[in-house]
């Protein structure tokens, strides 16, 4: 019997009653509405500012700011851009080292709170309960106060507590550190090659282990490969200076090609991306049985992808300036890399600097030979690190407790030892519970670095405030702040979400 449909095929509704069309129309409508509202508000604000004699120009980035910063790359910045760059790098120094330290401390304290060792768990509880219940600002000021008034006075002959390695004083904590030298990048090329080889060695040994069931020690092989490159590179790096020629050639060719060529290539790429999206989308809807019936929703998606591709191409062709900025930045970066390499330039890539004291004027100062934490840095760093660590400890504890007791029982019943159980069964499962709130804590820590202003640490907010006190360009500074913190936070979010997706459980 023929497969006759029971129902007559449905009549297509008119466009204004089509649910899919209405959904997309509403979204596009909202988008244009928001853009229109935004442009009206910005236009209004600009008009008001002009009326008051304020201007939204960006001269503050290029003018000499006439300010001095407590520490950082440019202590006396010659442009506003240099000042903000210094603030940004200082902020990132605190945020990145703080994130690493807070994670380590938090994980240890969190595990200690679950320990059956009475003393360890009580100490961990005291750590968490005291630190998370005191405002982070108070803690920052406390550590700054401790470092700037209770540490030993810096004398001309100060060297303690560990001479040549660690120097603690009211003017800062300085320790020995391997500083990269001008040949570091040449050695770095070997390190990159080492990492690639290590990855390759790890994978081949792993594959061999799986194929033959031998213990092939992939980790050890990878480490050896990396160390071999590092050691050879330590001596052979002047040869890698030849890489500089490559960068020089690239920079020259980037500059030699007219902008129009880039525009055309990029516009074509934009069109191609749109086309490829549509192509792949159709492929994904195609099964051996033939092309699946496309819904209205699918058509709208393809139209949107095509429109974005075409729109991108149009913008690229109509605005040569955008492409020009891009090529200039690339050329600058290539030239920058070129300078880092010089054929046969020799010298150790790293040199260890020890803390020392100098007396430039009447008072002794910590010399720049070691890596120095000023009292300001110490204050903001200790403050945000320990405060965040107390929260991370709770997150780690909660994550471990979230793994059902049956998991440990099954592991023990199989004969796993406590450490193996923790490493292979409990922590991987706890990790997926820990990650999202851990990301929040990283974001909190990064944003809390703005409290550096309370202890005169020249991070982004402190630098910005000094800048607008000088120039009066409040709006510009606030826009710079927002753009900066937003991009850092989004970057952290993207990373955390990436790992989050990778650790999710597979079900169904």
């Amino acid at each position, binding site marked *: 019997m023929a497969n006759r449909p029971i129902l007559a095929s449905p009549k297509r509704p008119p466009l204004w009653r089509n649910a899919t069309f209405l959904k997309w129309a509403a979204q596009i409508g909202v988008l244009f509405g928001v853009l229109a509202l935004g442009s009206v508000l910005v236009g209004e604000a600009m008009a008001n500012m002009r009326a008051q004699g304020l201007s939204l120009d960006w001269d503050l980035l290029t003018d000499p700011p006439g300010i001095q910063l407590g520490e950082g790359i440019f202590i006396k910045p010659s442009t506003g851009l240099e000042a903000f760059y210094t603030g940004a790098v200082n902020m990132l120094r605190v945020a990145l080292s703080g994130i690493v330290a807070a994670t380590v401390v938090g994980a240890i304290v969190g595990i200690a709170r679950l320990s059956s060792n009475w003393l360890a768990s009580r100490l961990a509880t005291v750590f968490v309960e005291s630190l998370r219940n005191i405002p982070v600002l108070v803690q920052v000021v406390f550590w700054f106060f401790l470092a700037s008034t209770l540490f030993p006075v810096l004398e001309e002959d100060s060297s303690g507590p560990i001479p040549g390695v660690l120097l603690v004083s009211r003017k800062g904590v300085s320790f020995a550190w391997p500083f990269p030298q001008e040949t570091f990048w040449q050695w770095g090329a070997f390190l990159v090659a080492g990492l690639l080889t290590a990855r390759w060695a790890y994978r081949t040994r792993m594959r061999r*282990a*799986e*194929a*033959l*069931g*031998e*213990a092939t020690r992939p980790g050890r092989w990878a480490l050896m490969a990396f160390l071999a490159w590092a050691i050879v590179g330590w001596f052979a790096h002047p040869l890698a200076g030849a890489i500089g020629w490559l960068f020089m050639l690239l920079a020259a060719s980037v500059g030699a090609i007219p902008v129009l060529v880039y525009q055309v290539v990029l516009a074509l790429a934009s069109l191609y991306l749109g086309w490829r999206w549509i192509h792949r989308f159709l492929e994904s809807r195609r099964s051996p049985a033939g092309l699946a019936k496309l819904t209205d929703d699918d058509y709208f998606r393809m139209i949107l992808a095509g429109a974005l591709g075409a729109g991108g191409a149009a913008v690229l062709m109509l605005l040569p300036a955008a492409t020009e900025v891009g090529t200039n930045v690339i050329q600058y970066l290539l030239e920058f890399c070129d300078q880092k390499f010089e054929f046969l330039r020799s010298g150790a890539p790293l040199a260890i600097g020890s803390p020392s004291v100098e007396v430039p004027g009447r008072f002794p100062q910590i010399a720049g030979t070691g890596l120095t934490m000023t009292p300001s840095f110490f204050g903001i760093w200790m403050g945000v690190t320990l405060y965040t660590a107390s929260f991370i400890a709770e997150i780690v504890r909660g994550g471990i407790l979230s793994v*059902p007791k*049956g*998991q440990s*029982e*099954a*592991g*023990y*019943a*199989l*004969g*796993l*030892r406590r450490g*193996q159980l923790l490493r*292979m*069964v409990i922590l*991987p*499962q706890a990790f*997926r519970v820990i990650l999202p709130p851990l990301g929040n804590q990283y974001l909190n820590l990064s944003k809390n670095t703005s409290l550096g202003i309370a202890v005169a640490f020249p991070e982004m907010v402190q630098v910005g405030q000094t800048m607008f006190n000088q120039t009066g360009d409040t709006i510009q500074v606030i826009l710079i702040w927002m753009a900066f913190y937003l991009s850092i936070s989004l970057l952290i979010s993207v990373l955390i979400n990436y790992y989050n997706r990778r650790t999710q*459980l*597979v*079900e*169904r």
Partner: protein
Amino acid sequence: MENGAANPIIVCENVKKWFGDFQALRGVTTSVEEGEVVVVIGPSGSGKSTFIRCINRLEQHQEGRIVVAGIELTSDVRNIERIRSEVGMVFQQFNLFPHLTVMQNITLAQVWVRKRSRSDAEERAMALLERVGIPEQAAKYPGQLSGGQQQRVAIARSLAMDPKIMLFDEPTSALDPEMIKEVLEVMQELAGTGMTIVAVTHEMGFAREVANRIVLFDEGQIVEEGPPSEFFANPRHPRTRMFLSQILSH
């Protein structure tokens, strides 16, 4: 004679266990022969689960002695490890590791505890998956399997360690009726190979057909024990008669 103790592999003597003020085991004395299949039954809260969890030290008994495969269970960590590597356990809630595939679940302890090469471990795992009837699920994650399949993987995971004794703690209680059968069949096949089995279960059909001996627990003590034919046909203790009438009447 079931207590003649020709070759006992588990010996329990006056085992007592408290949870705080509550006494879960009030002096349990019994022994299990090598190759014997013992089914432990009893009302909930009677201490039967606690009893078999004491055999591999998931619970710690406070008084009395337990000797498993010639090793006395004390707080000596080495003894605990040795006993756990001789005793496999299957749980009511399966307790598979959800972040590992079926294959990884079965090979993990083989590689880290038994120190087998990965390929040997995988070969053994595949053989066991064939035996429990689900070789095609090796690459899946536990969350993608039905309850019955998960429990069969759990049995394979325990067997991979080549235990001398298998403990089953209500292995079918969390399963749908149609999946109970597939798990019981695996257990029955296992009993046929001469494995020593101690199982807490409410499956009277399994007890009647497969068990060499049935042990009834009540209020932390063994009330009655004996071969199934006697136990079901001719219960001596009134408590046994009451329990049997409750579970067999419907």
